[in-house]
């Protein structure tokens, strides 16, 4: 699996994950509140440029991020273009694009474990109301390790059907996938119980 993280040592890379998320929320709130006022776009542009410079990325990385969300931009334009004046539609899309590209900075400069840790820490105060943050951590880790297993099941089923010349259909594919996956989950629970988890 390809993580979206880009290694680096910039100021943004060294900022704690939780702080980055909070800062980003404030910035995106500012851009969204500015809304359709004429200075929303320049404001967004300044944030994007400063953000990418602080992360040590150049125009090329920015362009790559914009390209990565091209379908999203198209979706936004199509949703609006029929009903709104073109200039307004493009302005709206550009503003949202800025927020999305800024959010990508969190992902680009933060390792996944660091973000998961931040989530774990953010959940810790909720222990008082009964949220078991250790179970949440186990759950997230377990899901990450299970994804390749399920993808393996999917490949097995696909190849078995192809070998028999069976027609590939979603329903005939999904049922065995679900059965294999849910059996796997029961085995996983037995294995964890045998090792004394909970």
């Amino acid at each position: 699996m390809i993580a979206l993280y880009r290694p680096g040592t910039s100021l943004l890379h060294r900022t704690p994950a939780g702080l980055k998320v909070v800062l980003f929320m404030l910035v995106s709130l500012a851009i969204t509140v500015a809304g359709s006022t004429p200075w929303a776009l320049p404001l967004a542009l300044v944030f994007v440029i400063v953000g990418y410079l602080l992360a040590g990325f150049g125009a090329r990385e920015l362009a790559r991020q914009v390209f990565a969300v091209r379908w999203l931009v198209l979706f936004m334009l199509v949703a609006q273009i029929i009903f709104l004046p073109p200039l307004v539609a493009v302005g709206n899309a550009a503003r949202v694009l800025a927020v999305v590209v800024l959010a990508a900075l969190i992902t680009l400069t933060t390792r996944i474990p660091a973000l998961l840790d931040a989530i774990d820490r953010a959940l810790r105060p909720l222990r008082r109301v009964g949220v078991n943050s250790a179970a949440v951590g186990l759950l997230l880790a377990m899901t990450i390790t299970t994804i390749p297993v399920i993808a393996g099941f999917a490949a097995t089923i696909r190849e078995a059907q192809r070998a028999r010349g069976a027609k590939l259909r979603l329903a005939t594919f999904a049922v065995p996938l679900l059965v294999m996956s849910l059996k796997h989950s029961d085995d996983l629970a037995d294995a964890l119980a045998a090792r004394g988890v909970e």
Partner: protein
Amino acid sequence: MARKVRFELRDLTRIAVFSAIIAVLGLPGAIPIFGSPVPIVVQNLGMMLAGVVLGPWAGAAAVLVFEVLVFAGLPLLSGGHGGAAVFFGPTAGYLIGWVVGAFVIGLIVNTGTRKPQWWRVALGCVVGGIVVVYGMGIPVLAWVLSAPIDKMALSNVVYLPGDVIKVIVATVISLALWRAYPQSFVRTAAVTARVEEPAAHVSY
């Protein structure tokens, strides 16, 4: 919340496995779709099935876990998208709607009987998978784009036929899953008296 929710170990592994299924449904080339070369997003099918099979709490938790991993930066959304960005873009409302929708589906399907009834599954998927998701997605879309909400709703009609097909597919799959592996639907309370008979044979 008056009722205290507590997940058993068996629920935890099911939540993890269902999150992983939703993720795999988004991997390119993982899922054959009616022999069509056009990529159709089937991840909301996974979200519907999570609600049907796992029930309201675990179903919503499975979708939530999936979304936390997307937020943390795994490129698990259809087309290799991921990262915090998707939660701040125009599609944020739909993602929140998925969690609430899975919960609503679980409530509708899960009440009373254990064997899923087709009309309950279909109704649940329509209400939770379409009404709730659109109901939360469209206002956020309109707000983020500062566009009129009624017109945004109108532009969403394009996605309706695909989602109706997914409701039908989800219903067919749920009933087939009941026949193939009824233990899937067993809730924690009943797990201690789990059916000991080995699982029905997997045919693929």
